[in-house]
């Protein structure tokens, strides 16, 4: 029944556009190839069949470089503020339990996540500027032919782009898609697009293991991996669960505009505050739980000094065998377990387990030999792919009115994470990497 409705809807759209085209042909007089507006001029370049996609990739690269490279000193400033706060708390509070709770649990755990506010806000600012300029719709148009070949709808592109910020609004943005099949495919592959919550993990691991020269490339490679996997899964879903052709893509391109600074900042803030809210609620409580588990039993851990004797170490050792083939220890297992709540908690967990804010966290990861570049990259890939966070699961359930699809997303992504990570490790070892 829904298939007939989709065909009818497509036929109506097609007929409507045929009618518009014939009416325009018989009533509007145009000069030969005359360019009328600035929008026409810019479209000639940005929608060029040869240059369109390379220009889009150039803009994407510029956006990521802006978000990561330019925000670096601001990250350092926030790190220092948290370091100073931690040191002050240790001096000011005499009770060791309370001092540990505030300096390690609150400042260490939460601080290691909040240092990533600058790159996240930078990414949101760049996305807002692109949207306000009118380029985002062009990006969807430019990618349409490519997306169609992959069995995706051109309109899928916009939710997927939004997914770079957060997968929750990305899934909600699929409401704009007419075809239920196209919408389901987009919804199921959206969590594979690397959202800003995973960014702290990438920045931490890549910064520690790949050095300043290669860290950006490692992060870009994980983003690219997410896109490739999304494409592959879209193809698989199109040929199995949601058979058929994508529906026609009809999009009205808005005129270009000079982005307004206040509006771009407002957009950035409205998206960014979601991250801050999450830091103050879900991430805060998750890090408190991690801290509690890491300092108890209080006597056995000597007041949180010997984490190996804590409950969290016990949990970690229990699930460690699952991840041992990838060369990860119990800390990675625990970090991934708590990352189910929100991916940022992976960094917060390491912050508590290693007792260091982000500045020293990277160094601690290296000095303790927890990862090699190969196992570190595999860890980044796993964080990208495995189980979407709680909020994404809830949104898929709400949007599909069923728990069947979130359960499916959970299972397929976990399986995919193990397969892809296994392949990365195997290929790396074959290439002689440790």
């Amino acid at each position, binding site marked *: 029944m829904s298939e007939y409705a989709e065909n009818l809807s497509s036929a109506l759209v097609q007929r409507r556009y045929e009618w518009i085209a014939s009416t325009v042909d018989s009533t509007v007089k145009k000069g030969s*190839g005359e*360019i*009328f*507006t*600035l*929008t026409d*001029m*810019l479209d*000639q*370049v*940005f929608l*060029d069949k*040869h*240059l369109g996609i*390379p*220009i889009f*990739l*150039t*803009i994407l*690269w*510029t956006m990521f*470089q*802006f978000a990561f*490279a*330019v*925000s*670096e*000193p601001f990250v*350092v*400033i926030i790190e*220092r503020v948290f370091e100073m706060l931690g040191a002050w708390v240790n001096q000011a509070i005499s009770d060791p339990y309370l001092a540990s709770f505030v300096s390690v649990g609150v400042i260490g755990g939460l601080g290691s996540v909040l240092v990533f506010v600058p790159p996240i806000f930078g990414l949101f600012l760049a996305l807002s500027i692109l949207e306000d300029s009118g380029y985002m719709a062009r990006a969807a148009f430019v990618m349409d032919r490519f997306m169609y070949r992959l069995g995706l709808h051109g309109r899928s592109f916009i939710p997927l782009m939004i997914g770079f910020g957060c997968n929750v609004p990305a899934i909600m943005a699929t409401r704009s898609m007419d075809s239920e099949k196209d919408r389901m495919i987009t919804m199921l592959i959206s969590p594979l697009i690397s959202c800003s919550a995973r960014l702290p993990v990438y920045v931490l691991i890549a910064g520690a293991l790949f050095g300043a*020269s*290669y860290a*950006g*490339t490692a992060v*870009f490679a994980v983003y690219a991996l997410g896109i490739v996997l999304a494409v592959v899964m879209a193809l698989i879903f199109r040929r199995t669960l949601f058979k058929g052709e994508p529906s026609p893509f009809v999009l009205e391109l808005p*005129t*270009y*505009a000079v982005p307004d600074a206040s509006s771009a900042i407002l957009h950035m803030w409205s998206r960014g505050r979601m991250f801050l809210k999450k830091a103050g609620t879900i991430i805060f409580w998750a890090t408190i739980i991690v801290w509690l588990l890491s300092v108890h039993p209080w006597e056995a851990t000597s007041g949180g000094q010997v984490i190996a004797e804590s409950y969290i170490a016990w949990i970690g050792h229990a699930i460690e065998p699952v991840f041992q083939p990838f060369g990860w220890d119990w800390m990675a297992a625990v970090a991934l377990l708590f990352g189910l709540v929100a991916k940022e908690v992976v960094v917060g967990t390491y912050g508590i387990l290693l007792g260091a804010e982000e500045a020293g966290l990277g160094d601690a990861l290296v000095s303790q030999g927890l990862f090699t570049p190969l196992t570190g990259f595999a860890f980044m890939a796993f964080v990208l792919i495995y189980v979407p966070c709680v909020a994404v699961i809830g949104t898929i359930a709400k949007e599909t009115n069923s728990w069947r699809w979130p359960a499916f997303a959970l299972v397929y992504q976990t399986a995919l994470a193990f397969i892809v990570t296994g392949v990365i490790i195997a290929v790396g070892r074959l290439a002689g990497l440790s």
Partner: protein
Amino acid sequence: MEELKHSTGKWLGAYALILGIGYAAAALAEATRNPEIIPGGLLSIAVLLVISATYLMGVKGLIGGRREGLSFLMGGLLLSGAVGGLYLMMAGADWLMYLLGETEDFAVTYETSLVTILLILAMPLMPILRKMTRKMAW
């Protein structure tokens, strides 16, 4: 839009040619100056080649006095602004890192890349294009 005179088109075409070659040279310089940055710098090289191609695609049209050439010149200028602006901001971030004591030295000469020079070279085009398109609606 004002008429594109043949002579104006010719010198704008020459300007676009110089910028196009300039960006291609910058890409080449980036690849040869720092071979260890590949594959890390591969993306920045590709970006410079895209800007170069955008300028070069406008040359024929501009020399021929066709307005379509102006579109590519304008697109190239926008990309120059975005990428050149990014390099300037990255230099600013390096300076801040130096002030914070995170890096040992900061040299303006090292930070001034070919991309920044090319942005400065492209800047005079801005008022010219603005004048030519001032009566055009968005």
